[in-house]
């Protein structure tokens, strides 16, 4: 087990290292080079040369890379050209929002997806099953941002049930400790602030959770079907175990292994979906920052976010793989 962990960690470091080299190359090959990208229309040859000197772009490539990597590792991602704030500070405010949003989206997807998938498998081939499958196929075919707009226009604007945008009502003037707004409200006992932040999360989480929901339903269904046909389930039935015992101890427990993997993989994808959802709901998380950074050609910010996303994604995948080995003894043996 330890050897596997070490090997996977090394692989992860290598992958991220290669990625950092690519990111660095990306930065250097920006249209017109980073100095021109920063100066924009004010670029003159003298200014470009001066800026290149200040930022060390006139040094050998490997020196530049070393410095750049050093800065990245110490959390110095540079200054955002659009907000004039340190990118690290921007991220420390926005990332908790995205984590909260992803958490609720995933919670919604799991809470609804696993039971739906299980029910579809139990009624395999019946209209209920077909209905669930068609629902999942339609679910993955709807553009996330369009679904977001429908929810926003219908539930928030027309019905007025939930707030259409933002992370929290500005009027509340809530205290922020961790930048997880719901948690902050609970910690500071500003219940109205927690409730308000939660209401702001509902619609974006629903939009963001649709695709994971569809994936989780399908995988749960397929996996339950596989397990239902296993010999040990038949044996359990033959032994005369109670239905309930068979379902929970024999079927669900084994069927959930692939579902755990699927959930883990969805965590990484949520980050990408968050770009679209957060833009629709003007929810100031990392995804919104990214979309805004694209409009503004804010390369320092884009770079930091993509690197952050990769680290999170690779790390989550690693944890999923390892937890899989912990849960399933058969994987451990190999």
């Amino acid at each position, binding site marked *: 087990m330890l050897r596997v962990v070490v090997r996977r960690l090394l*692989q992860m470091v*290598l*992958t*991220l290292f*290669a*990625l950092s080299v*690519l990111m660095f190359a*990306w930065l250097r*090959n*920006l*249209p*017109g080079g980073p100095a021109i990208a920063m100066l924009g229309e004010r670029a003159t040859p003298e200014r470009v040369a001066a800026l290149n000197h200040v930022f060390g772009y006139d040094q050998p490539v490997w020196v530049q890379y070393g410095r750049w990597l050093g800065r990245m590792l110490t959390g110095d991602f540079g200054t955002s050209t659009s907000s004039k704030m340190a990118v690290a500070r921007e991220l420390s405010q926005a990332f908790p929002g995205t984590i909260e949003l992803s958490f609720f989206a995933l919670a919604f997807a799991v809470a609804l997806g696993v039971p739906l998938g299980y029910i579809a498998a139990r009624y395999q081939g019946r209209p209920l099953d077909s209905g669930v499958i068609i629902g999942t*196929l*339609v679910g*993955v*075919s*709807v*553009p*996330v*941002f*369009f679904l977001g*707009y429908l929810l926003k*226009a219908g539930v928030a604007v027309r019905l007025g049930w939930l707030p259409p945008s933002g992370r929290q009502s500005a009027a509340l003037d809530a205290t922020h400790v961790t930048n997880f707004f719901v948690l902050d409200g609970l910690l500071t006992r500003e219940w109205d602030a927690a409730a308000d932040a939660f209401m702001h999360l509902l619609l974006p989480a629903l939009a963001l959770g649709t695709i994971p929901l569809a994936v989780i339903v399908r995988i749960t269904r397929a996996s339950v079907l596989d397990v239902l046909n296993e010999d040990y389930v038949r044996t359990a039935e033959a032994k005369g175990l109670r239905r309930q015992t068979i379902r929970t101890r024999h079927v669900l427990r084994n069927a959930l292994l692939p579902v755990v993997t699927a959930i883990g993989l969805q965590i*990484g*994808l949520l*980050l*990408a*979906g968050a*770009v*679209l959802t957060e*833009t629709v709901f003007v929810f100031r998380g990392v995804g919104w920052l*990214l*979309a805004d950074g*694209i*409009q503004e*050609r804010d390369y320092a910010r*884009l770079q930091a976010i*993509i690197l952050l*996303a*990769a680290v999170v*994604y*690779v790390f989550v995948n690693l944890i999923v793989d390892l937890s899989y080995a912990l849960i399933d003894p058969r994987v451990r043996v190999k």
Partner: protein
Amino acid sequence: MTLGALTERKQDRLDRLAAASAESGGASLLMDALRRLVRSPVAIVGGAIIAAFVLLAAFAPLLAPHDPGVRYDELIDLGTASHIPDHAPGFPLGADNLGRDLLSRLIYGSRQTLFVGVAATLMGLFVGVVLGGIAGALGGWVDAVLMRLTDVMLAIPSLLLAISLAALASRPNQWTVIIAVATIAVPIFARLLRGSMLAQRESDHVLAARALGVREHTIVLRHMLPNAMSPVLVQATLTLAVAILDAAALSFLGLGDQDTHRAEWGLMLGEAQRYLDVRPGLAIYPAVAIVIVALGFTLLGESMREALDPKNRR
């Protein structure tokens, strides 16, 4: 007869047998899958949607009542800042924000959407198949290097990768969209093909061919590749749906084709977000079109996967 001549004859016969079995056996395997495919209602629905979509794209000039690029005075006159007409005499779906015929733009939009989806998928498929094929055929360090490369590409969530690639372009256009969407498909195709080639490498028919001294590239091209392609083709069908959706997402983020003169569903949907309060239909029609087409490719892809799955063979 010398031993050499004997092996040569044997080799000849094996080649012929392999070719014959590739044809009849392969065909019967494929026919088998095809038979299951046409029996599946899901596949028929998916296929019908795609057929309708392709026909719409092919005959767009005949079907569209108006020129999609022309701003009609009668439509412009009907519209105000807070009103875009949703119907007018001769214009059943009314106008878009610039006074162009929405119906014609929707019909012509199928062309551009089909083109972007197909071009991105083919590009991704081609590069992925070449890389995966090389990795699977050669193995060893080539395989290791190529697979680490795909690891790096897969280390970024795919849409984020497409966004960062598209954001690189100083002037986004339809080709930056196609390249961005194709790139994220490459590692998936490469991994799939490599995996199924590796499974072939150790299989009996390849070992037999190798033992008989069939040349390596013949083994790879004639014995391994055809048998390894079916999961890749299934993936290609599913990728078409994803490509259309991702292209729409890029348009939405302002990274799509900047030429709004061109009618493309993703672009129309992205543009329409600004007029959502004035006329939601501008967004809803292209969105529904995208959903239907993406669903068509997904339905067909999923039923192909099911039909090719040996577990479902009866």
